[in-house]
């Protein structure tokens, strides 16, 4: 797809080709040739660099020190407090990585991410396949199914906390009405984990479904017709036409879904607050609590942030590389 390039001179020259020497004349020529592209990207780049790049750089620096809210110098009115923090190298990172909490949180975060993304994708694909047929009431179904996406996440989290309330929640009331005992959805470690996954799946399926539905509609009909003529069974058609046809959409939504789920803060924070006893805490919520409880540990929280980011970047690079080998990525 990189074939669609307007600027003829640059076509076929991948961005890597800029290794060509950037001397003054080169800069001038580059400016003349590329200023359009640069100008169009500039607002985004500037905002991102200032608001994300600066905190990132500062975070990396702080993560190598022992700065806390108490040791960071500041002047507040009549109170002048000098800086007393020092450079400590990688001590923050080793402390985190060797803590028992890190591994158990990472384990649950991986389970949470994999379970959520798999269910998002599976259910989303199932619904997209159903919706991709001509039928009555199609747009009504589509509208209802996408409803969870239209409701702000924090509102949904509150609703679910109410629905799952052990005593006053509707879910248990329904269970009791048909003769079962209520379940402590949010009060038992296992059920709390199951509940947050269920809530996140409820929230995330619509996006997946719509994206995959679009992907299905983009697969040329002729392929199916030809396969039918050749006597392919429905399963064979699904396996050899639908799935490959969806690959480009799938690869993107799975990558984004993984990133979003890994960092899904509001669901855990608002539904279970990480409880009971910290059992449903994922890395981001745990790191948040480390950072904001009591006297803030700036260096420690920065190290957590960098670590989480690093995990995701590594994952994305590996994933992208796998895709590029399949010839699908930029």
């Amino acid at each position: 797809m990189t074939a669609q390039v307007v600027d003829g001179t640059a076509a076929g020259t991948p961005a890597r080709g800029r290794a060509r020497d950037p001397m003054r004349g080169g800069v001038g020529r580059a400016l003349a040739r590329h200023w359009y592209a640069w100008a169009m990207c500039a607002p985004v780049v500037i905002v991102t660099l200032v608001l994300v790049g600066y905190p990132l750089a500062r975070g990396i620096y702080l993560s190598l020190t022992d700065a806390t809210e108490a040791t960071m110098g500041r002047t507040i009115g009549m109170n002048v407090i000098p800086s007393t923090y020092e450079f400590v190298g990688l001590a923050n990172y080793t402390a985190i990585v060797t803590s028992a909490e890190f591994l158990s949180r990472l384990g649950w975060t991986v389970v949470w991410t994999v379970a959520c993304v798999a269910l998002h994708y599976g259910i989303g694909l199932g619904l997209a396949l159903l919706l991709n047929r001509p039928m009555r009431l199609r747009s009504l179904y589509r509208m209802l199914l996408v409803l969870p996406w239209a409701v702000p996440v924090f509102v949904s989290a509150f609703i679910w906390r109410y629905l799952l309330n052990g005593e006053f929640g509707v879910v248990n009331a329904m269970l009791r009405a048909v003769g079962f005992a209520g379940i402590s959805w949010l009060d038992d470690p296992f059920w709390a984990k199951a509940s947050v996954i269920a809530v996140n799946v409820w929230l995330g399926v619509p996006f997946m479904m719509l994206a995959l539905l679009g992907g299905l509609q983009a697969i040329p009909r002729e392929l199916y017709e030809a396969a039918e003529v050749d006597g392919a069974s429905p399963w064979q058609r699904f396996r050899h036409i639908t799935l490959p046809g969806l690959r480009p959409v799938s690869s993107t939504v799975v990558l984004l879904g993984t990133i979003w789920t890994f960092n899904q803060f509001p669901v855990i924070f608002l539904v279970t607050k990480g409880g009971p006893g910290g059992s449903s805490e994922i890395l981001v919520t745990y790191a948040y609590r480390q950072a904001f409880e009591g006297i803030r540990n700036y260096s420690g929280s920065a190290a957590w942030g960098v670590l989480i980011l690093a995990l995701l970047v590594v994952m994305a690079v590996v994933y992208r590389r796998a895709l590029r080998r399949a010839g699908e990525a930029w």
Partner: protein
Amino acid sequence: MSVTTARGARAATRSTRSRGASVALHAALVAASLVAAFPVAWLVLTSIKPRDAWQSTTIQIFDNPTLANYVQVLTQTAFPRWLFNSLLVAALTTVLGVAMSASTGYAVSRFRFPGFRSIMWMLLITQMFPVAILIVPIYNLLAGLGLINQFPGLVIAYLTSAVPFCAWMMKGYFDTVPVEIDEAGRVDGLTHFGTFWRLILPLSKPGLAVAAFYSFITAWAEVAYATAFMTGDDKYTLAVGLGQFVGQHKAEWGLLTASSVLIAAPAAVVFLLVQRHLVTGLTAGATKA
């Protein structure tokens, strides 16, 4: 566009499906729709019950329906003010977000320039940021710029979360627009920008609709930044104001549900307006990104 194709094929295909398969199909979709819509429906039902009715342990679909919760929310709190603030912030974020992501998306779709790959990575990595941890540094930065408790500060913060995804998706969308259109525009003497503005954008409405929807929802529903950055209650957005109804030591579910409905309704309206475009826009974006 593909929707119309499917519609054309409808009559032919439907007749080939057996009655049993039809029933199963509809049963599955009805079940899924129920699961999707039930929590939202229950929210609406709770909001029209009396203020303390949520404490009932039995299921009552209707229980003395009343609008008292809405009246209380609308008249006893600064709800109208918060609503206005939210609309303002969401509108600014949407307009700026769409403009920025469209121009960036177009540039990375059409041009190969030094920095192209870095920008693609930047757009991806920005989405990986654990926002919860960055709040304090961003707060300090905005404080330094004098943007705390100011709407522009909040809008800028929202742009950093909305624009990367939108730009990525817009790039994918623009990739599906044939490059011959650009060439034709150039032949007619349009500048790069003229081509983009007059030819490509009008063809990209579905993509723009998704970007608009995404930006709007981001700004409309965000809590963490708004809570930290808005320090005066005349500047609260709905999401922050809502926090006053449910806390650790208090559960005004009646008021909370009423205000939730009031918050979710505009989001749903925007959604309905753009939903026709969502599928096509999202696909093209996701397919080619």
